[in-house]
């Protein structure tokens, strides 16, 4: 007992929390993590919340989905419906459909949870999409975050897969038609299509297996992957520390913001409840996916104006935009280009999305870490490429509603399709050029403001009779926000060590010229001084 520690000699009166935290720490060593992370700075900007929206809506999806699994039965066995919803009484339908109706009409609060689940899923995918746009347009994918961009991208794909599998589970008319379309698309894939469809559906479409199989994917395999990837994705946010916008005191080598405990925890934790509250409000007031109006799946009827959930729209739209006749028999086999072209085009599009950070890094050759987020205008070519991508996606997406556009605005079906075909092909170029010009103009305006100050609105009459507006110079903090960015110049082709100019060099140089030919450099100190001395 001679080695009695200070702990045992302290007075017996200790608070419960102190005792509890000591008990836990002695067994987990969690103090290391709390000391290391508890006061971590978390940079603040409204756009940084988009990823959190995704995370928080996913939590709703997870919890509400677990509740639904206790009632949903993923069986395609035929039953005669005998629940509370009178119009469908006695109608033959699958157990999956009947149990979904029971959740909606016979379990108190069941419809609420089902609608929370669906609305939260829609929000989940939307928030991921917006979050990706934020990361793209601010260059937050640059080293060291390229790999986390890939993880995030995979999460986006998984979220859409989760959405589609979930959408298909109730086995109602609309989801059955969605599966029919998937079946038709798979069958159009050369060589493996027919067998892939046959294996997926466990025989002929629709078969009696698909709902059960999608259910396993929907509640086991895909969520496990999503949870694991979210852990990795968020883990890397901690390891990399969050990016921040340029500002006074913000450096590439620091991270400035409210500490995680308590402010960030209060704000982000509160924000989580706000997101949940908003989802809950929508679920309380707005119906989604009223399968009781559609009825059970039957291959024969379909209603006009069929729409998938929003995030599948771009793929559906791509199918609609193909002109007539893109299918051939060649070598005694059917080549369905009306299906292959959309698949390949979408494949290339999302391939470019996932590859973009690596392409830009290769063009720039910049091997430094980047932690200061770009203002979109300061990377004009990237921003313009992003705008082109958004336009392409939006064109495909709008095409998924081509029939509704035609009926609502009294247009011809053909006119809508032709206009959207033009949008998808020409639109990205127009968006590219407009965006690039706007970015350059904004950069010029920034230079103007730094050099000559902002318009104060004060008009002064000079002794000579001339009226001028007084320009107010910026303070140093405001100025720093406008000048603290880096610009890049086009790559000069130089022979390598063996005196050769490689093809890779040439390609890189031409990309580099495309990216950085129009370059507006930030104002330097010298420029500002000479600007004040000399001319205007």
């Amino acid at each position, binding site marked *: 007992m001679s080695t009695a520690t200070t702990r045992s000699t302290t007075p017996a009166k200790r608070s419960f929390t102190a005792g509890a935290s000591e008990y836990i720490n002695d067994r987990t060593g969690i103090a290391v993590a709390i000391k290391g992370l508890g006061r971590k700075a978390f940079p603040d900007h409204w756009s940084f919340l988009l990823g959190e929206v995704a995370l928080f809506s996913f939590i709703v999806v997870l919890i509400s989905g677990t509740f639904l699994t206790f009632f949903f039965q993923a069986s395609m066995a035929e039953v005669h419906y005998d629940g509370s919803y009178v119009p469908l009484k006695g109608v033959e339908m699958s157990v999956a459909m009947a149990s979904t109706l029971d959740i909606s009409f016979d379990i108190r609060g069941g419809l609420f949870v089902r609608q929370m689940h669906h609305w939260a899923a829609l929000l989940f995918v939307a928030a991921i999409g917006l979050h990706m746009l934020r990361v793209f347009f601010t260059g937050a994918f640059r080293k060291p975050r390229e790999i986390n961009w890939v993880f995030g991208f995979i999460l986006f794909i998984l979220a859409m897969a989760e959405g589609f599998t979930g959408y298909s589970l109730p086995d109602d008319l609309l989801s059955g038609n969605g599966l029919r379309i998937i079946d038709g698309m798979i069958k159009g894939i050369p060589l493996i299509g027919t067998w892939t469809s046959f294996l997926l559906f466990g025989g002929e479409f629709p078969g009696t297996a698909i709902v059960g199989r999608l259910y396993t994917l929907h509640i086991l395999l895909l969520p496990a992957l999503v949870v694991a990837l979210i852990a990795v994705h968020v883990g890397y946010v901690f390891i990399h520390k969050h990016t921040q916008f340029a500002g006074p005191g913000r450096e590439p080598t620091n991270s400035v913001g409210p500490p995680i405990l308590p402010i960030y925890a209060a704000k982000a934790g509160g924000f989580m409840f706000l997101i949940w509250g908003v989802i809950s409000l929508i679920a309380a007031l707005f119906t989604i996916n009223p399968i009781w109006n559609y009825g059970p799946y039957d291959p024969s009827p379909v209603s006009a104006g069929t729409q998938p959930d929003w995030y599948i729209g771009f793929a559906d739209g791509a199918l609609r935009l193909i002109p007539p006749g*893109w299918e051939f028999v060649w070598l005694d086999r059917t080549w369905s280009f009306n299906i292959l072209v959309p698949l390949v085009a979408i494949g290339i599009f999302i391939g470019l999305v996932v590859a973009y950070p690596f392409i830009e890094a290769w063009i720039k050759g910049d091997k430094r870490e980047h932690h200061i987020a770009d203002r979109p205008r300061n990377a004009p070519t990237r921003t313009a490429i992003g705008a082109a991508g958004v336009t392409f996606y939006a064109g495909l997406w709008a095409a998924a509603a081509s029939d509704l556009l035609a009926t609502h605005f009294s247009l011809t079906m053909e006119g809508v399709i032709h206009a959207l075909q033009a949008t998808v092909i020409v639109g990205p170029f127009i968006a590219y050029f407009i965006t690039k010009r706007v970015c350059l103009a904004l950069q010029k305006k920034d230079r103007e403001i730094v050099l000559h100050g902002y318009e104060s609105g004060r008009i002064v009459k000079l002794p000579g009779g001339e009226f001028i507006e007084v320009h107010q110079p910026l303070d140093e903090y405001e100025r720093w926000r406008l000048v603290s960015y880096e610009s890049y110049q086009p790559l000069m082709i130089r022979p390598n060590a063996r005196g050769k100019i490689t093809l890779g060099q040439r390609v890189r140089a031409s990309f580099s010229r495309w990216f950085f030919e129009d370059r507006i450099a930030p104002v*330097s100190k010298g420029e500002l001084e000479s600007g004040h001395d000399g001319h205007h």
Partner: protein
Amino acid sequence: MAQDDHSGTELAAADSSHAVQEFAGSTGTAVIPHDAFENPGFEPHRPRVTDEDPRREKRAQRTVYTLFYLSILGSVWAIAAYMLFPIESNDVGAVRLNNMFIGLGATLALLGIGFGAVHWGKTLMTSAESIDIRHPISGSEATQQGAVEVFRQADEESGFSRRTVIRNSLIGALLAFPLPAVVLFRGFAPQDQIPVELLSHTMWAKGTRLALDPSGVPIRAADVTIGSAFHVIPEGLIDLEHGKLEEKAKAAVLLMRLDPSELNETPDRASWSYDGIVAYSKICTHVGCPVALYEQHTHHLLCPCHQSQFDVANHCEVIFGPAKRPLPQLPIAVDDEGYLIAQSDFTEPVGPSFWERH
């Protein structure tokens, strides 16, 4: 580090020297200007109204706890709504009330906590910002060397790159072992069925009567007036024990009667119709949706999924949309009792294209 009143500036200056040391690496084509502006350091801290005015602070405090109490009220209300608005059997209105009131209670519970916590964070918690110093993600030189050394030592001790036969045989084994698992996927579909066979045939056969969908009542030719359209299934389909939907997904047919003068029939198919009555597969040749919309005065069929349009007057050839092939025609005739019957099965596979189709 320095005097208090300049600490921000001093910090910034110290950090930019870090920047040069820590994030070294090729700058690529970035332009590093010689006389760029220096970071002016942090702006002076601006206190909030709640920092300066005790009455505002009190009010903020009241707001926060009121919101939290409202949240409790919302939770209680949601529980009460569960009991107060039961779902009466056969009453859709009760479902709506149950959904709405439980939902609004939950919303109040959640938003109360959310707004309260955010307000607390924004108005009452100390607003000083933390500053973390970033270090290169790659770790220190020594750490990297240490990692390399671990691999080198592991390689040395195991002989992984030295004993090439062992290594290569292991790689081979690792590549081969998942293959049986891939083969297992064949069991996803019945072993005794060949998809191409199934896709090439439907339930229609010589003499099968055309019946109404969904009732299954056979159709007399005399009942089909000019301009009308019927959704049709083969007679006997609704009595099938198994595979009803699978058969229906192939055999669904649209029956229309046009004025025979408006029907442009090729000579080889002239006998496939009966007095202006024609029957076409309802399954779109694009990706298989039911082509359910018939425009009577133009004789056009429209697929509601991807808007392919087919011209019934011209053997349902595609006039617009992504489909390529015309809808397959079902040859029909009339039996002794005046009912419409099929002359045979479709003469080609119906529905979406597939690889082996030719």
